[in-house]
């Protein structure tokens, strides 16, 4: 399908565990273990899971930041994995990081931070660069006076927008946003989320949105993938996942979100306890002998679930 800008097929990222006298490989940590994702152009795909479920590793693999054990990643029809990879593609994939405090170099001015990707890929004169940075600052809603300031002079939300400006400097086609708002207060979070949606519309961006906050994900994404121990357990539209979750893990995850409606508290609590019991009793059925989730099965046009294979 040419409609998909990003196609991940059976991605595996395994880390060797070494030990013993000769430091031989004893075992592997299967951080990502057979994940396939297709992301259509201009949409936002949310990757959700607990810490350690492999969502960030998947994002990093797409960025080329960690090595891929097996599987292919196709971006815009080009293969990113394996030999002969084209650097050019990396220009089109950019990342927004979680922590706006540590992802900006404190010793660099905003100008230097934002021009760094530009310098790597485009040869511009100083004046052109200044113009580009001013343009970018305008897009992310920061005043021109910000250009020669240092990161510490900005609030958390403003910093995160500097991070966004840096990410969109090269006019990428795909942005990987790794927990972009989890370090921010709700009021600031709203600001960054609004603004990411605006930019997406304007620049026709595709986003891979990695988060553990389901409320945020529901707000931002059109498709969702739920990860559990390196594998997808359920995939579908936001509606599929939130209103018709099929996998026990997803059900439990959805039920665990604290609801701000005080009328629902009792009901939620009952549901949550019920699911907890079910989870403790039956969850083993949802995993194969090695403790891995089963392969995904199509249950509707958009909805795929890793239900146990009935034998």
């Amino acid at each position: 399908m040419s409609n998909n800008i990003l196609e991940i097929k059976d991605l595996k990222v395994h880390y060797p565990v070494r030990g013993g006298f000769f430091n031989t490989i004893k075992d592997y940590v299967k951080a990502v273990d057979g994940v396939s994702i297709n992301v259509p152009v201009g949409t936002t795909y949310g990757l959700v899971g607990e810490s350690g479920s492999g969502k960030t590793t998947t994002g990093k693999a797409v960025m080329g930041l960690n090595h891929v054990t097996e599987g292919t990643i196709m971006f815009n029809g080009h293969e990113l994995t394996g030999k002969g990879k084209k650097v050019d593609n990396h220009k089109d994939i950019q990342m927004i990081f979680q922590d706006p405090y540590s992802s900006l170099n404190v010793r660099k001015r905003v100008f230097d931070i934002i021009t760094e990707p530009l310098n790597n890929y485009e040869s511009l004169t100083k004046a052109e660069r200044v113009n580009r940075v001013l343009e970018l600052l305008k897009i992310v809603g920061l005043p021109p006076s910000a250009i020669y300031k240092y990161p510490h002079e900005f609030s958390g939300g403003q910093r995160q927008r500097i991070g966004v400006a840096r990410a969109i400097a090269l006019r990428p086609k795909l942005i990987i946003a790794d927990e972009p708002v989890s370090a921010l207060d709700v009021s600031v979070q709203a600001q960054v989320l609004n603004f990411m949606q605006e930019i997406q519309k304007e620049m026709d961006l595709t986003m891979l949105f990695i988060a553990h906050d389901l409320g945020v994900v529901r707000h931002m994404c059109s498709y969702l993938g739920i990860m559990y121990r390196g594998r997808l357990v359920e995939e579908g539209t936001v509606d599929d996942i939130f209103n018709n979750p099929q996998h026990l893990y997803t059900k439990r995850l959805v039920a665990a979100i604290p609801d701000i409606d005080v009328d629902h508290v009792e009901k939620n609590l009952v549901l949550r306890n019920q699911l907890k019991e079910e989870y403790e009793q039956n969850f083993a059925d949802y995993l194969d002998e090695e403790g891995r989730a089963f392969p995904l099965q199509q249950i509707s046009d958009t909805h795929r679930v890793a239900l146990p294979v009935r034998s």
Partner: protein
Amino acid sequence: MAENLLEVNNLTTSFKIGGTYFAAVDDVSLTIKPNEVLALVGESGSGKSATAFSIMGLHTKARIEGEVNFLGKDLTKFGPNQFNKIRGGEIAMIFQDPMTALNPLMRIKAQIVETLTIHGKKSKNENEKYAVELLERVGIARAEQVAEAYPHELSGGMRQRVVIAIAIANRPKLLIADEPTTALDVTIQAQILDLIRELQEDLGSGVLLITHDLGVVAEMADRVAVMYAGEIVELAPVREIFKNPKHPYTRSLLTSIPSEEQMGGKLHVIQGVVPALHKLDRTICRFSPRIPWIDASEHEENPELREVEEGHWVRCTCYKNFYLKETNAEDLAELENQELERDAVGGNEDEQ
């Protein structure tokens, strides 16, 4: 009406910035009854943690004024020795980050026994047995083995359970939980909250729950105090806060959370930022700079917290004619521009 467990009267905690003291907690009064959960909500920098730390006597360099009455004793008059007797005993605290709250060099059991020996007179053997019981109590499977483990061997959720086990070790009358689940995943968060609720009902303790997650508040709290820039701006039972919020800040905050109704739509953005301590105008309604479309005449000077309905306290008169307004991006940039210009001289100084 039950006797108040904790009564905080006009608590003011000030930090020294460049030679002068600035109040981070400004004239805060609140009460907690036994068996009650009071949630303290606000953005970072609103003074909610500073309030908790002042109650616990953990701010050694700050100037603290006002009264903190706990079971008839004024804690602000306590010296370090007196504090040590009640901290971890009658008042216990659950910290935000279980990674740093535990001693990495001590076994779990030793850390629990430590609090037990300081506050009790039982033998070492009994204490060790009780430590394992406590671990079971907070829902840790294989408690015997976990007791022998070091913190790094446990997951985040397990560590937070251990922190809670230590907190409840001496059956505290007051439990202060400072963002107890912020560092945890949602499923584990749900478990930890259930646990805190269960223990609280069991022990009949009062709980001061500090959080910025309004979902957690809705599930846990009996009453809610909303803080902004060091002051309580609204104090009401939990239903009232969510169903009938009055103060502009509370209302803005509630509409800025992604919810089902506004899925994919625009979220409400509160203009501007929380002002820095030393730049705060303390004579006006502190939220007024962030709602500039509300006429100055709607605010009062030196706004007070008043009971507008039974049990529902609101600061300032501006709530009466308040309406939400969306700001467009250009206005927002303009405002931030001014903000930056103003900050250019002082820079962002952190709280002490």
